[in-house]
């Protein structure tokens, strides 16, 4: 019974930690859905936004809410610049070229963030403790961190919001049209520029939220960029163009890596969660390259 309870705890902890990956993956999906661009700089955006947020709050003593709004506005500016100076000139370039440009963009953002706000690890206190919730610990005998639960709730809210946006609003319809065929969409009068700006800003704000969650747990530091890389296997499992996929993928990665780490890791000296998600992604790629919820990729000669 204890074994089962422990297993449950590991799984639940993994699932909730997985929602953090989902939050990062969500930013990727947003941009991919609207522009068929793999935004490799999403991890850097997470780092940049949350470091800016911390910088505003700690260096200038700006109150929490105002600092959050300012950081969000900053991400809109970043989105604006990206659209104008990176994406527009690369409108007709191949996928791989745009991907490499976004790697460059990631470098720029990482460098700028560190030049502006320093390289030392900052603590981010959201007022939510990273310790087990007593009520759940007493009643269900599961030790689950309050921060994990908050991250789960935030992720759920954002998913629902974005899902509704994509499904039921005119903007969402425009976004989907642009993703399907940018040329056709612009020829029927969908403002491509605005759509791109909107989607990059939205991805920036998602990055900020993800960064806050990660920052509160691990401290705001450069390692966030590497953590955000784990959103890539999440996307492969969930599918690049699916918002629910990002969530499910995150949950699968989170739970699997924790279970593997706890039950199999000790035989190999631990720390297998560093690569287990990627290997899992390879197996998914071999059997279902488009991911669980992705659209099948058809290539024509």
């Amino acid at each position, binding site marked *: 019974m204890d074994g089962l309870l422990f297993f449950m705890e590991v799984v639940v902890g993994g699932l909730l930690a997985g929602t953090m990956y989902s939050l990062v993956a969500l930013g990727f999906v947003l941009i991919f859905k609207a522009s068929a661009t793999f935004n490799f700089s999403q991890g850097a955006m997470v780092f940049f936004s949350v470091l800016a947020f911390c910088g505003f709050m700690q260096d200038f003593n700006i109150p929490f809410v105002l600092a959050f709004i300012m950081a969000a506005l900053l991400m809109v500016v970043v989105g604006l610049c990206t659209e104008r100076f990176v994406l527009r000139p690369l409108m007709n*370039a191949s996928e791989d070229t745009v*991907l490499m440009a976004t*790697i460059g963009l990631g470098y720029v953002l990482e460098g700028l963030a560190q030049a502006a706000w*320093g390289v030392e690890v900052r603590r981010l206190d959201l007022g939510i403790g990273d310790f087990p919730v007593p009520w759940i610990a007493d009643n269900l005998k599961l030790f689950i961190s309050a921060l994990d639960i908050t991250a789960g709730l935030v992720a759920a809210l954002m998913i629902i919001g974005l899902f509704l946006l994509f499904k039921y609003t005119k903007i969402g319809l425009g976004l989907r049209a642009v993703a399907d065929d940018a040329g056709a969409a612009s020829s029927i009068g969908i403002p491509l520029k605005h759509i791109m700006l909107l989607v990059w800003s939205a991805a920036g704000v998602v990055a900020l939220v993800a960064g806050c969650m990660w920052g509160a747990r691990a401290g705001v530091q450069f390692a966030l960029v590497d953590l955000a890389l784990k959103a*890539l296997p999440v996307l492969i499992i969930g599918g690049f163009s699916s918002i629910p996929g990002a969530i499910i993928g995150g949950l699968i990665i989170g739970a699997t890596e924790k279970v593997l780490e706890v039950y199999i890791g000790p035989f190999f000296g631990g720390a297998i969660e560093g690569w287990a998600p*990627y290997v899992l992604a390879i197996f998914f790629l071999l059997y279902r390259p488009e991911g669980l919820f992705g659209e099948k990729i058809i290539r024509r000669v």
Partner: protein
Amino acid sequence: MKPVFMTYTKNDIINFCVLMVLGLVIIPTFIKTEYWYTSILIPWLCLALATIGQQIVMGYTGQLALGAAGFMAAGAFACFNLILRVPELGFFGSLIVSGLIAAAFGILFGLPSLKVRGIYLMVATLASQFFIVWMIDKFGWFKNYDSSGIITAQDIVILGVPFTTPLAMYLIIVFVVTILTLLAMNMARGSTGRNWMAVRDMDIAAESMGVSLLRTKVQAFAISAFYCGVAGALFAFTYLKSLEPVAFDIKLSFKILFMCILGGLGTINGAYIGAAFILLFPVLLNSVGNNVFHGAIDATIISSIEQVIFGLLMIVFMIYEPLGMAKLWETIKQNIRPKLTSLNIKILKSSKVKNPKK
């Protein structure tokens, strides 16, 4: 298919001789400071070799891979263990076998390339990066059960002669790099490279022309990993002089990716140009920071600025010259050459006009 080898033109042979004289005669006679060897020439050649590996898989075969440092780690630690456990092999023997071991990893992690491409493949190759470094870190055998985590590399001894001075190490590297570069150029020009490029440009079309995707891709990954493995071993034994898995982290992979892209995809000389740029630019920036601003700018800020500039260059090159600095160099050469010849003709003409008067 019968392999085709390309013959070298007169120009190639002249270039080769000039470079050899430069590398083996001029540099050793005129550069006496150790700094140049230990901090610039040695790492430059090692990283250029790894970049050639990256070029083969990315520039020539068009497969987006991001795990060069993982293969370098495999090569470095394989070389350490071979010298330690099989001393009969000698240094060059160990170097070749460690390259082959890295190639085996390359084949294993290159297999997903048969099914996926683009960023999907990038994620699959990231697995190799993290897995190899983790494996070396966690299994004590690879590190000879050294608890400190950092192992000193053995001295390079060839036929009983120790090669420990920076100049001697430099000469070894020049030797290895020259052979491997010539091989790479020949492969790239011959049927092997033609197949790679056919797969890069349109894999489905290449397949219908009778190019085996399985063979071509796996071959590219294996050769690429071989180059990275040898480069990693040289890097650890001559530049780092120690072995630690952390030295081969994802940052090094990104660095090699940048060298490859900024240098120029699908060119061998681009690998050298890119490696030189990425390696020398921080040195330049630091000296500007120290000499112009007299240390008024913090070192961390300088390294951040360096990162921003690399990123910006990447974006600018992607927009204006996706083929990188090698292409830029070609364009400059092509623009200058006619001007030079016309200048020559003018000089000749004027001298001819002057001559009859005499």
